[in-house]
């Protein structure tokens, strides 16, 4: 998990991509990530607290996310997370890969059609 090249990490598991995408928008705490990632991926039962935590830990170990200060006016006891630059690159790379995949699929279905 310590590769320096985003491409080496692809394809990402849906959960990982979901979390990275949510965090691309703004730093967020655990529950917020879980809620939004579940919405995002569209599979509402994907993430529970255990899986969330284990994945966050893995991403942190891989240098893709890091702890963030809680924004003013929020509960300081909640742990916030934000994307690192590398994490952002990985999310972009995966999005591009998925984009190409969709283009290919679209093209294929047009040709078939």
């Amino acid at each position, binding site marked *: 998990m310590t590769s320096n090249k985003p491409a080496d990490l692809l394809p990402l598991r849906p959960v990982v991509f979901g979390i990275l995408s949510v965090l691309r928008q703004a730093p967020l705490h655990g529950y917020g990530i879980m809620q939004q990632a579940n919405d995002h991926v569209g599979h509402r039962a994907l993430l529970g*607290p255990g*899986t969330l935590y284990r994945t966050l830990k893995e991403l942190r170990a891989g240098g893709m996310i890091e702890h963030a200060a809680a924004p003013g006016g929020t509960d300081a006891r909640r742990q916030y997370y934000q994307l690192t630059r590398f994490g952002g690159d990985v999310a972009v790379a995966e999005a591009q890969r998925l984009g190409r995949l969709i283009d290919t699929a679209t093209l294929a279905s047009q040709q078939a059609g």
Partner: protein
Amino acid sequence: MTPAQPASPPTAPMNPLSAGERLYCVALHLLPARFRAEAGPEMLAVFRDWHASAGDRPFGAFRLWWLALRDLASCIRAERLRSSLALPQLQDRAPMIEILFKDFRYALRGLRRAPGFAAIVVLTLALGIGANTAIFSVVDGILLRALPFDDPEELVAVWADYTRRDGPVREWLSYPNFHDVRQLDEVFVEVGTYLGLGATLTGSGDAVSVRGAQVSEGMFNRVLGVQPALGRGFAASDDIPDAERVALLSWALWQQQWHGDPSILGEAIVLSGEPTIVIGIMPATFQPPFSPQAELWVALRMDATQSAGARGEARYRSIARLQPEVTTATAQSAADALGSALEREYPDANVGIGYALRPLRSDIVGGTSTALWILLGAVGFVLLMACVNVANLLLAQATSRVGEIAVRSAVGASRAAIIRQLLAESIVLATTGGVLGALLGVFGTRALVGLAPPGTPRLAEVSADARVLAFTATVTLLAAFAFGLIPALRASRGNLSVALNEAGRSADGSGGRRLRAGLVVVQVALAMVLLVSAGLLLRTFQQMNSVDLGFEPGGVLALQLGLPSGRYADNADRVAFYGELERRLAALPGVDAVGGVDTLPLSGFDGDANFQIEGQPEPPRDQQRIAWVRRMTPGYPETIGLRLTSGRFFELTDDGEAARVVVINQTLASTYFDGQDPIGQRVYFGRADDDPFYLTIVGVVGDIKNFGVTQESRNAMYFAYAQLPTGFMSMVLRTSGDPSSLAAPARAVVADLDNLLATASISTVDDVVQQSLASERFTTTLMSAFAAVALVLAVIGLYGVISYAVSMRSHEIGVRMALGANRRNVGRLVVGGSVGLVVAGVALGTVGAWGATRALTGLLYETDPTDPLTFTAVIGVLLLAGIVAATLPANRASRIDPIRVLSRD
């Protein structure tokens, strides 16, 4: 994408946990503890937010619990799998301490799976560390550590050198010769002297026998540099003939008799009937370099004028302190010059006598050092064997785990993580072994001090030494560490696929096998050296015990008594006392015979005199005829079992009024009366022209061992006690029953006769004889113990290698059996492998033992260092050990099922 809105949690303040949240908390306990500690709080926080928001939806709570429990279950499964595989943590940036903690936990778990292996390694380490600490502590305390006095290197023992008279190099000094050497103040700060003292202390409860010394005035303060803890030391005015007698008490005696009451200072105590003023208490730590068991010291009260005639009476042991810049050699030349001057001045007494100076430390421990160095060498061998064993066991263990390591590697453990973990196992083993070894060392040192023969010098200074412990622990732990590391490196480097395919079969290279076999050969060789050494010492001990002593020690009790010269000033009083005592003791039920002698054989006391034979020319002064002299009562020969060769023993009529008579021993008779009958001839003491003291020989007795069972017979004479009485006597009682049962009645008889008299000691003569062999027994016992440990270590080593070889070769054995080998062939193959290793070890060990046992020569008696019987027996024992070690593995090999083994392919 919608702009990011931090989803604000519905419940901002953290309220107390609801019932559902508490339930989730409980469920979190199913997670592995370490993961729970790390992730639990955050998981709970997320769950609380989730729980709070779930209420508004249809079936919200139900759905929430379904999802939460499913999530938790998958999490538990994943985490448990991870810990059981001992995978390295996914993040490398976890604090080092956490990683180490985890490694140690896995190590403990791994060792619990192989408890036999762990126990053997730990015990081996503990034995190696413990035995070495104990022996080295003793050697350090006795031989190596400086004497506990200021500038101890300035202290020398001063002896009279009788070598030119064919006498000992270390003889005591006469008072005048001490007085003269004391005047050499250009080389000596001070010379002190002392004389043993056995006294009866009365006046504070029961009469007690105390041991002590009479000490010249400068001995404590100027020679040893020790001051009393309380009161004052001896002054010059205390050490003159008419001074009031003063005493210094040992701390222990003060506590024991006066319970540490300082008011005893300045008070008079009664020592053997003479009032003595207590002037001081010596410090609790004070151990004089002489008579270590002394409990009190009195001033000597001698001067040169008083003892002028006693130049020939060697009774005083002396210690000197050199002037700061003076070497022992310089002092020796000054003493030599003085010796020559005295020889010219006093030719009668001093011809052939010089002074010999020896550094005090080596002088005190000289007799003990050979045995101790040899024991230290032996225990070093044990340490070496322990290290070899640990190495061997760890090597075998690591090799057998190649498969397991390969699996770990395959599931993602890094090489560093694997090495770290194997090392953690070594460290856990080493630490446990080290702690046990330390305990063993501390208790072993105490046991050795208890076991050491009485009179061993400096025993009180021996204690388990932290430096020693640190040293041995470091050596063994390094061994464990090194031998844990090598297999760890090798095992983790291995080719994964090969290891996985061949796991448990032939992953061990032939190099590794040869290394382990070589280690075992070395081990057998070391064990052989120790076993041969122990065997030779046992043979020596056996020879010593079967020596003909010349008397019958069995069934005899001895009581030592000393009559105070104050109350028993006249010879007649002493003779009357011992006569009456003998009569009363003889009347005790069960007593078959009673007698008295001034010095028991083998009790460690010497006493000799120069004599002449009437009608034979007197030899030159420097070639004196010397004989041991003993005084005995008529009942003594029968009681102790002396054998009469010719003539008669003493009778009751040989008293002070009768003609003086003497009984001589066989050696004296054959040395000086070659071919003649000595009976009726006369010997005399003094000079023929100066009214000598004549005695008529009435009997000749067989030689007895007087001063050590291994000593050659010397000339000896027995005087009739009634004709030459003394205050100190040992009464001996023979019984057909248990002699020690007579102790209490005999003591009562003494108290009945004189209740102010204490019995200095009561013991059976058998014990006295055994006591004289105490140091041989000490050495032999320890050497045998080390040899036994060595043998056990060698068997463990052999077992480890053979058993491992069997499991590695199960494939080959299976093939052999499939091709028709029967169980017996297979068993023979395995046992043959073990015996082969033993034979190689024995070959190496024979060469080693041949050389090493030369060091033992000084300790052997009537035993050749290359004694063929011992060598043969040891080789037999080792071969047997080789067979025993192979029995279990051979049995296992013969039960190998060829079909199952071959089907693995």
